[in-house]
C-alpha cells in the first residue's frame, strides 16, 4: 500500500483549473520527485495535500486514512511536514524559537536535535540569531530542520534549491539522502540534476495532471521522454 495517494484532485483558482483529476501514489521510503514545467501544478499539489486550499475536490489518503477534509494543523499532526517554496521561516523569531515551534510539546528530543546539528552545523552556530539575518541557504536548512525535529512519516519539500549556490545545493542533497533513510520525502524540483541524484521514484505533472510516473533511473536514461515531457533538453536548438 502506498503511503500517500491522491485521487482525482481538482483545484481551481478563480476560473483557472490548476489541477484537474490529478491522481498520484507515493510509496513509503526514499525520495519521490515531482517534476514539471512552471505553472504545471506541482506546488498546488503539495498545498492540496497540506489542506491549504479551501475547496478541493477529490481525496487524499495517508496511511489508509482520508485526510482531505481535515484541517491543516491536524494533517500536520498526522505526521506530514511541509517546507514551502518561500521556506516559511519566521524572520522575527530566533533560530531556536523557530525550532521550538516545530516541536510537538515545546521540548527537544536530544537525539533529534543532535542529528539536526550534525546535518546543519550552521544552525547550531546561529542558534540564537534572528532568522531574517540568515543567508538563503541557512534559511532553507532551518526550514528543513523544522520538518525533521519531530518524527514524521512524510516531508513535502517545494523547490529547496531555488536561488541557492551550487555548493549549498550539494550539501542540501546530502542532507536529503540522510533524511530519506528514515522518512519519505516528496520533493518538487526543477533542478533536474539534483532531482536525478536523489529520486527513487518520480512523476511528471503537466497541465494539472500526472502525465508520467515511474522510477527515476528509467526516466533519467530516457532523454527523449525528458525532452517531450519537460522540454528541458536544449541540444536540439543547436
Amino acid at each position, binding site marked *: 500500500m502506498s503511503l500517500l495517494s491522491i485521487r482525482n484532485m481538482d483545484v481551481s483558482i478563480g476560473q483557472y483549473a490548476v489541477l484537474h483529476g490529478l491522481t498520484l501514489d507515493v510509496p513509503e521510503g526514499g525520495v519521490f520527485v515531482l517534476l514539471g514545467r512552471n*505553472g504545471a501544478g506541482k506546488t498546488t499539489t503539495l498545498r492540496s495535500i497540506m489542506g491549504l486550499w479551501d475547496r478541493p475536490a477529490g481525496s487524499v489518503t495517508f496511511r489508509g486514512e482520508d485526510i482531505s477534509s481535515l484541517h491543516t494543523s491536524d494533517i500536520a499532526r498526522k505526521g506530514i511536514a511541509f517546507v514551502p517554496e518561500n521556506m516559511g521561516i519566521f524572520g522575527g523569531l530566533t533560530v531556536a524559537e523557530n525550532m521550538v515551534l516545530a516541536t510537538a510539546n515545546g521540548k527537544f528530543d536530544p537525539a533529534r536535535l543532535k542529528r539536526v546539528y550534525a546535518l546543519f552545523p550552521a544552525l547550531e552556530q546561529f542558534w540564537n540569531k534572528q532568522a531574517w*539575518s540568515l543567508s538563503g541557504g541557512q534559511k532553507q536548512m532551518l526550514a528543513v530542520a523544522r520538518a525533521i525535529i519531530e518524527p514524521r512519516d512524510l516531508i513535502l519539500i517545494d523547490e529547496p534549491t531555488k*536561488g541557492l*549556490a*551550487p555548493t549549498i545545493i550539494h550539501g542540501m542533497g546530502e542532507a536529503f539522502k540522510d533524511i530519506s533513510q528514515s522518512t519519505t520525502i516528496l520533493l518538487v524540483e526543477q533542478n533536474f*540534476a539534483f532531482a536525478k541524484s536523489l529520486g527513487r521514484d518520480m512523476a511528471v505533472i503537466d497541465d494539472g495532471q500526472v502525465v508520467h510516473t515511474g522510477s527515476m533511473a528509467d526516466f533519467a536514461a530516457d532523454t527523449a521522454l525528458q525532452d517531450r515531457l519537460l522540454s528541458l533538453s536544449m*541540444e536540439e536548438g543547436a
Partner: protein
Amino acid sequence: MTHPSLSTRDLTIRFGGHTAVNAVTCDFHPGELTVIVGPNGAGKTTYFNMISGQLMPSEGTVEKDGLDLTRMPASTRARHGVGRAFQLTNLFPHLSVLENIRLAVQAQSGDGRRFFTPVTRLTELAAKAERYLEATRLSDRADMPAAALPHGDQRKLEVALLMAMEPDIYMFDEPTAGMSLDHAPDVLDLIAEIKHDHTKTVLLVEHKMDVVRALADRIIVLHNGELIADGDPGEVMSSQIVKDVYLGNAGELT
C-alpha cells in the same frame, strides 16, 4: 546595429542579505525579440520588475532611448512606452473585456483624464479599442466581465491590454504559463505579429523551449541573478555552461 531602445546598467537588487539580481548590464534593440531564460529563481521576473517599475533597484540604472527611468514609478514608465504583461493573470476582473482594453487605450491617449465626456461620445477611443478586440479575436466576448473568461482568453486579454498601450518595449512574462498546449498558439501568434512589425523591442521570459525556438532572435541566460550568456539562439542553446545551468549540473562543475 541601431542604438539600443532599452538598456540596463549594473542593475542590482538585494532583499535583506540576498542579491536577487546582480549587476546585469544589457542592451535591447528595436526590431529584436530577446528571450530571457534561466532556471526558477534565477531572477528573471525580478529583472522584469525593475525594468517596468514594480521594484526599485538597489543599484544601477534603466534607460529607454537615453531617458533615465530608474526612479520613475511604473505608471510614468508605462506612459514612456514600457509595456508589461504579467505572469499571473492580472486584469480588472469585474470590468468588461471592452472596458479592460479601453482603459489601456485611454491611458495611452491621455483620455483617462477626461471626466465629463461620456465614453460613448469618444468614437475614436471606441474604434481603437474595437481594433484591438478584433486583433486579439475577443470581439464576441466584448461585454463579458474579464473574470468570466476562460483562462486562455484571459491570457489573450492580457496581451490585448499590452498591445492597446502601444508601447515601444513589450515585456511578456511567461505569456503561456498555465495554458494548455492547444490554446498557447493563439497567444504566440499575437507575439509573432508584434515581432513582425520590426520596430518594437520585445522581451520575453519563457520556459517552453519550442516557444523559444520559434520566436527568439536572441537569448540571454540568467542564473542566480547574473547574466551568464547572451547571443543568438543556436549559439546560446548549444553552449556547455548554459546546458549545465539549465540541467542543474552547475553544482557538479564547480
